[in-house]
């Protein structure tokens, strides 16, 4: 059982998610703003927090800052209707291990939660597209070549995610194991979070796209 806390300021949405999640998931609580989220994470100790990006009191990024700043090991999966590049890149850089949109089906969301609780990363097609765009869009010299560019394999995996492939389908397409696909995606997530390339943030702000 994966213990999940749902953080969202819309009550209807919280109960909708609760109803849709599969039997592997146990919802241990709900929170509706930054304050109650931080308190609930401390007291309930969930494995995964489903985090809304836009909330009163600073939004998901503020929750990430306060919880991860205090050294907590809880994992976050961001969930949003926004899909704007600056929001997506913002929460990922803030420490979330994945980003999915609220249109995701209950089964896919369950899979994503399990994956995040295992320490892997979850990329929606759009997030994959953003990453490809952000890492491709510059010829500027990089500070750390290892962190500042994607390998050919990582690029292939991201491209397939952007094309709408599930991890299992990607593994089949590239003749690798699902575990290897997960490793590639986690490695991209690490680069996304640690790369010092300021173009990344600038790109996200400049590109206010859906």
């Amino acid at each position, binding site marked *: 059982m994966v213990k999940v806390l749902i953080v969202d300021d819309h009550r209807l949405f919280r109960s909708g998610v609760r109803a849709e999640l599969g039997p592997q998931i146990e919802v241990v609580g709900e929170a509706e703003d930054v304050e109650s989220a931080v308190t609930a994470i401390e007291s309930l100790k969930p494995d995964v927090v489903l985090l809304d990006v836009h909330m009163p009191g600073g939004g998901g990024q503020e929750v990430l800052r306060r919880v991860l700043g205090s050294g907590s090991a809880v994992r976050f999966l961001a969930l949003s209707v926004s*899909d*704007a590049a600056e929001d997506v890149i913002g929460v990922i850089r803030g420490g979330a291990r994945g980003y999915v949109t609220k*249109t995701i*089906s209950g089964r896919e969301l369950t899979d994503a939660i399990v994956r995040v609780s295992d320490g892997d990363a979850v990329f929606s*097609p*759009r997030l*994959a*597209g953003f990453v*490809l*765009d952000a890492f*491709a*869009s510059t010829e500027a010299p990089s500070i750390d070549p290892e962190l500042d560019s994607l390998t050919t394999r990582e690029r292939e995996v991201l*491209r397939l995610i*952007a*094309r*709408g*492939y599930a991890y299992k389908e990607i593994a089949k397409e590239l003749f690798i194991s699902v575990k290897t696909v997960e490793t590639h995606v986690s490695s991209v997530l690490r680069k996304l979070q640690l790369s010092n390339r300021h173009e990344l943030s600038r790109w996200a702000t400049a590109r*206010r*796209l*859906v």
Partner: protein
Amino acid sequence: MHFCPCTCDDAREMSETPTIPEAYPRLVRPLRGRLVAGVAQGAAAQLRLDPVVLRLAFVLLTVLDGLGLLAYAALWLFTSNEQSEGEPPGRDWGQIAAYAVLGMALTAFGWLTGASTGGIGTWSIALGGIGTLILWQQAEPDRRQRWMTGAVRQVRRSWVRAGIGLLLIVTGATGFLASQGQLNQVPPQLLFTGVVAGGMVLIAAPWLAALWKELQKERRERIRQEERAEMAAHVHDSVLHTLTLIQRNANDPFEVTRLARSQERELRNWLYQPKADADATMAAAVRRVAAEIEDEHGVPIEIVCVGDCDLHDGLRAMLQAVRQAMVNAAKYAEAPVISVYTEVEPEEVTVFVRDRGKGFNMDEVPDDRMGIRQSIIGRMERHGGSARVKTEPGEGTEVMLTMKREQS
């Protein structure tokens, strides 16, 4: 006025304020009976004087260093025409000629006697006066009231400043008058003019600054109100409209989904999309085509675009093929969602259209089926691109399209 199905009030009507007759109307230039631009007539109506008095005053001031002309131009620039319908009535050219002759005669007289040179002092006073006059007449009556009381308070609050200012003006004016007699001593004359101006600035500065701040505040407030009105109008025309339609079609799930989806797309565009020409670039064009197919068939299409470029003929043909691939997926695949991925690379553009639907057997597609062979593969090859279809029964379908970019 368009047909409005909602029961709510029209947002735009709410944003209008009722007009009440003003005790002190703002200066407007009437069209009827004007000679040049109606400035004198408008100002006369404002001051409740005969227009002839003001016209003479303008002519006289014009003779004095052209100040009348300047004031006239400034007032013309900063006032609006009176609202009126129909053809503007003609002007009385005879009167214009009379004023012009009068003006020229006075100018000639002024030159001959040397009486029309007023020095720098007159200029600064005149400019300041005209500026204040313009600010004054632009303001609403209650605002004028506030400025007046504000000015009085300013003066009361700083007796020292006002005292020094007055002292400076008196000193300057005395010195100015005293030096008038000795025309050869120009420097002291300039100095005293400066002293007068300094005194006036000292007294008026805080008041003028407050006035300016007030004007800026009013301007910002107005912009904010306009934005709010625009937002209300937009929400009314789009979201409320769609919600009404959804309620009416509550028993038709296909129509409800279609309406909700198209409204979502429209709202996203409005919120996040930079206002760009929808057909100028590849990514925008793919989004537009997908939106049309979504509307027609009610199947959501998820679009991811990486990079972007301008369209050329090859890419336009590619768009047609992309459209056909989307139509096929929407019509036959029975998939809940279609994924479209567009990638623009330096050399070529690639588009993938994928669904997780029924799939089909490529070999069993009859030769005369236009959809895939002609509209997709044939079209791409004619324009120097390529198309590949990957499908199997039960495995979904993916169409891959590639087109070289035209280097310009």
